[in-house]
């Protein structure tokens, strides 16, 4: 833990002193450690999700394994063969996500707005504001010349403007919540996790409690 504390202090020094040899050392140790761990984990993943099943008699699984291995041909003059892997991965990825994305991102949003208006939950003002914000933001993203000119430059331009302000509010929330919060957290986390915890463990180890 003492070594961990020292290494994390070297890493934290980047904030004030930039890319120093101490930071470079920690960076290299981290990259080396993560690479080695990932290598073993991936090797084990191939074993438990493919090799074991092939050995047990599911020989058809050799096909996806070969398709996966084709990607390494990118490093050779037969690089064209790696396109098959990428194409299949893209196709499978789209197939897996397409229907469920519509369900979670589009259907869910519509249903949520309708349900909150019907039940006036969590409270009537929030439900009404959610509906207004959703509709106004949608008008802001109308790009069709035929349909959007009324909202962007015409009589109803205030609707799109309201949508823009709603977007600003959501960006502000996300910025405050995620970035500012995490920046402040990092100081407390560093001191509590790597310094305070080490001293507590040392006190226990040395019997000074």
């Amino acid at each position, binding site marked *: 833990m003492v070594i961990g504390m020292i290494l994390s202090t070297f890493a934290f020094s980047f*904030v*004030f002193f930039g890319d120093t040899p101490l930071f470079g050392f920690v960076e290299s140790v981290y990259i080396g450690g*993560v690479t080695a*761990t*990932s290598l073993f*984990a*991936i090797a*084990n*993943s191939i*074993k*438990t*999700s493919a090799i*074991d*099943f092939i050995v*047990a008699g599911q020989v058809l699984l050799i096909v996806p394994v070969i398709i996966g291995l084709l990607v390494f041909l990118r490093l050779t003059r037969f690089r064209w063969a790696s396109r098959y892997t990428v194409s299949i991965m893209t196709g*499978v*990825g789209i197939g*897996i*996500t397409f229907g*469920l*994305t519509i*369900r*979670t*991102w589009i259907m*869910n*949003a519509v*249903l*949520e707005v309708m349900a909150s208006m019907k039940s006036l939950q969590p409270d009537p003002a929030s439900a009404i504001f959610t509906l207004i914000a959703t509709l106004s933001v949608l008008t802001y993203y109308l790009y069709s010349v035929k349909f959007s000119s009324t909202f962007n430059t015409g009589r109803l331009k205030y609707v799109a403007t309201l949508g823009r302000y709603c977007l600003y509010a959501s960006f502000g*929330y*996300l910025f405050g*919540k*995620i970035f500012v*919060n995490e920046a*402040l*957290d990092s*100081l*407390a*986390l560093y*001191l*509590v*996790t790597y310094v*305070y*915890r080490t001293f507590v463990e040392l006190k226990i180890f040395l019997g000074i409690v």
Partner: protein
Amino acid sequence: MAIGLTVLCLIPVVLTLINVPFVLPLTIGPITKDFYNEIQKLPEGSVIAWCSTQQYRGYVPRRDLYKALFYNIFDRKLKLVGCSFAPDTPQLWTDILAYSGVVKKYNLKEGEDFVFFPFLAGEETAFAATAADFHKAYSTDLRGIPTGSIPLMQRVRTLRDVQLVIHDGSSFTQVDMFVRQWPAAYGVRAINMQVYATCAPYYGRFVFGDLDGTRGDAEYEALTGYVGEDLLKMNARNLQGLFVLAFVAIANATYFTTRPEKLKVEAKKG
């Protein structure tokens, strides 16, 4: 300037660590209560599937939270199936078992009360494959025991056989993948362990509880009674927040009081 501001921000953290008795009140928010209640209302023997994409950097600072969550789960005599979707995750399961000491505390048996699976590559594809059939996705568990011979896995084939799913990770985009492939596809209730912003669009329909960052972690520790470092961190963060607000107020006041007035220069005519 940066060093000065950092040192000023460090003061509240140091004050907390040396046990200066200045603690701001902590109230338990509704989404943390939801998270807790989702676990509490499960009948004894229910199975929880945990989809983890957690890595070392996210796990180490939240170690006490994991301990509290493990205690909460096994206090309720629930069963746990842990899935690893990041290369680091398998070792984190092992570490949290050792750190929390749940096996000894609750007299648990691996394979009957809990099971952890090794890393499965592929992110969303791996989520989908696991949910569709645990037995086809993994030949063995983390210890190398064949999935088919694990007693707990005799009653868990797909995600339809579990009563609650937990998501925990270190990348914001993975919440979307998780929601798509687990709760949305199988209709199982989910709770999340990343900041609320990541699951806000799904809250109440697919996700029914959340631990909203450091605050959520601290609230959960307070709620379960298994107090750890997160309450300490929350106190430091509360004081830090006050300092930051004070800096912003002072900086603005200074700027507006010392700002030189704009000089009016008349253009020469002719």
